[in-house]
């Protein structure tokens, strides 16, 4: 598994411990106290490292190639996923998957962008960058969920909508706008979970939930750190600095009232333990679904609208007052 730069001290220590253990297996003296002391120290180091990640380190975690993808999460969270395809207009976009599934016995509609897990799949899924028809498929499935009063779960992991010629021709901006608008008024509960990357309008198009949750090592921003760095300094390699400025971590977003809760990941990131991550998400889903499913649908929609209506920071004064 690919190791991050910042993990190297703890990985080196863990390696030493492993070597030591192998060595003492053949020895007669008892080193167990020393070993367990070292192990505690390694765990502490690991914890320290992961509690002090920089925003860009979290962005990097969110992009780990072994991090669970949407289909992995669907497998971890639901039973009997039945994928439904197509926008009924132009194409089935592999970069967004959606369909019906059971969440602990409850039929739900689940939708999310899908990155490829290998080169071949990446090509089929356009590296997880959706075209307008992906958003149109999503909207179709959401309206279907609304018709049947089924809760909607969106799992968000997308760097952004695809900036391509055909995507522009087929109305990328318009499709996103329509998704956002129609999702806002859907008369059914919506739970959005940002599982990895939450990039710009391409993420928001799936993120107009009654509750918005976020994994610990996910990010959500108006612009990717790289693009931001390019705009500010014409230098995408300064993405780490941009990531600091953008305040894109769950901690900041929770403080800002953009998200409702942070789902803790296993130490070292979701990719280290898919099953545990799935269990974590499940327990949050159970709780938040129960909450929003209890709210009468009229109030639910009003509260959803009010939630976004509130967002924004400005001063009521005018230049003339200054």
């Amino acid at each position: 598994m690919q190791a991050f730069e910042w993990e190297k001290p703890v990985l080196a220590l863990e390696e030493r411990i492993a070597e030591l253990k192998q060595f003492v297996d053949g020895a007669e003296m008892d080193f167990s106290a020393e070993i367990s002391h070292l192990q505690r120290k390694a765990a502490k180091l690991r914890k320290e490292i992961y509690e002090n990640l920089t925003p860009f380190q979290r962005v990097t975690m969110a992009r780990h190639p072994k991090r669970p993808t949407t289909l992995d999460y669907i497998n971890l969270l639901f039973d009997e996923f039945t994928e439904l395809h197509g926008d009924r207009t132009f194409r089935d976009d592999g970069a967004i998957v959606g369909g019906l599934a059971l969440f602990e016995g409850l039929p739900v509609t689940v939708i999310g962008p899908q990155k490829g897990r290998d080169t071949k799949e990446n090509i089929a899924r356009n590296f997880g960058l959706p075209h307008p028809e992906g958003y149109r498929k999503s909207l179709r499935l959401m309206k279907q969920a609304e018709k049947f009063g089924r809760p909607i779960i969106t799992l968000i992991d997308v760097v952004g909508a695809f900036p391509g010629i055909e995507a522009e021709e087929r109305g990328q901006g318009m499709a996103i706008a329509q998704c956002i608008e129609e999702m806002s008024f859907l008369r059914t509960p919506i739970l959005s979970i940002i599982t990895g990357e939450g990039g710009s309008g391409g993420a928001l198009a799936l993120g107009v939930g009654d509750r918005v949750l976020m994994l610990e090592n996910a990010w959500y921003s108006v612009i990717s750190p790289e693009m931001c760095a390019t705009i500010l300094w014409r230098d995408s390699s300064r993405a780490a600095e941009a990531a600091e400025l953008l305040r894109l971590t769950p901690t900041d977003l929770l403080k800002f009232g953009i998200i409702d809760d942070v789902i803790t990941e296993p130490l070292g990131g979701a990719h280290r333990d898919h099953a545990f991550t799935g269990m974590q998400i499940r327990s949050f889903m159970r709780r938040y679904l129960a909450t929003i499913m209890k709210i009468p649908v009229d109030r639910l929609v009003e509260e959803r609208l009010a939630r976004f209506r509130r967002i924004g920071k400005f001063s009521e004064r005018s230049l003339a007052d200054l």
Partner: protein
Amino acid sequence: MLNVFKGRPKYATVRPQEGSERKDFPDNLWTRCDSCGRMIFNKELEKNAFLCLDCGHHFRLTGRKRLAMLTEEKDFEALPPLLAVNPLAFPGYPEKIRQAQEQTGLDDAAIMGKTAVKGSPCILGIIDFSFIGGSMGSVVGEQLVRGFERALKERLPVVIFSGGGGGARMHEGIFSLMQMAKTAQAVGRHSRAGLLFISVLTHPTMGGVYASFASLGDVILAEPGALIGFAGPRIVQETTRQELPTGFQTAEYALAHGMIDAIVPRSKMVDYVGRLLLWHR
């Protein structure tokens, strides 16, 4: 708020004074047409609604000039002003805002108010590209939403001229992104009450502005040649490494691809919008 309309001190932020405003087209100079190369005396240009006298090229208009073309001072009641803050403590943002305010004489990129176009009352909004690229931060988002809310309350149509080249305002980060949802929802409430929204896309309307309220008009118009799209052309080219088709992301291209209802030359815009408003009264 606007120097051209000094009559409403309660809402009018008249700072800086007219003299300090950077002029896109200083009175006594000439400007070269980007499209055909002709040199035009600026006074002539102004008389011709900032259309090239030869080729009809649409020069970019400031919000206040656009406003003056659509309605008259006595008919325009601006919404209460709002000022940007710096929610992320983004370095350099307050200076950027101050500079834009000084250059444009506006509080922020959106001019919003109640007025009448060709005698039909409406809420009119104009996003001014010259204010940080017409990007949508919390102030623009809130102003738009208040415009739609006012319109909903008074059962008025809304007309917005969007020249948001930058889309979202990066310096406000996630708050800026959320304005897409907020404005789209405001359109949605207004629309679901059976009211008309005419969205006019002027050069350039991109990114988060295009991907939210601006795409949600009952009728979507555009000025000739206006750049309209989600991703910027440079990003598209860099991502796809393909040559962009001729006219990519122009209003004409958007029309051919079914995204907009009509291209309306600036000289006919007031009549066109006025007619649509009249037919929906």
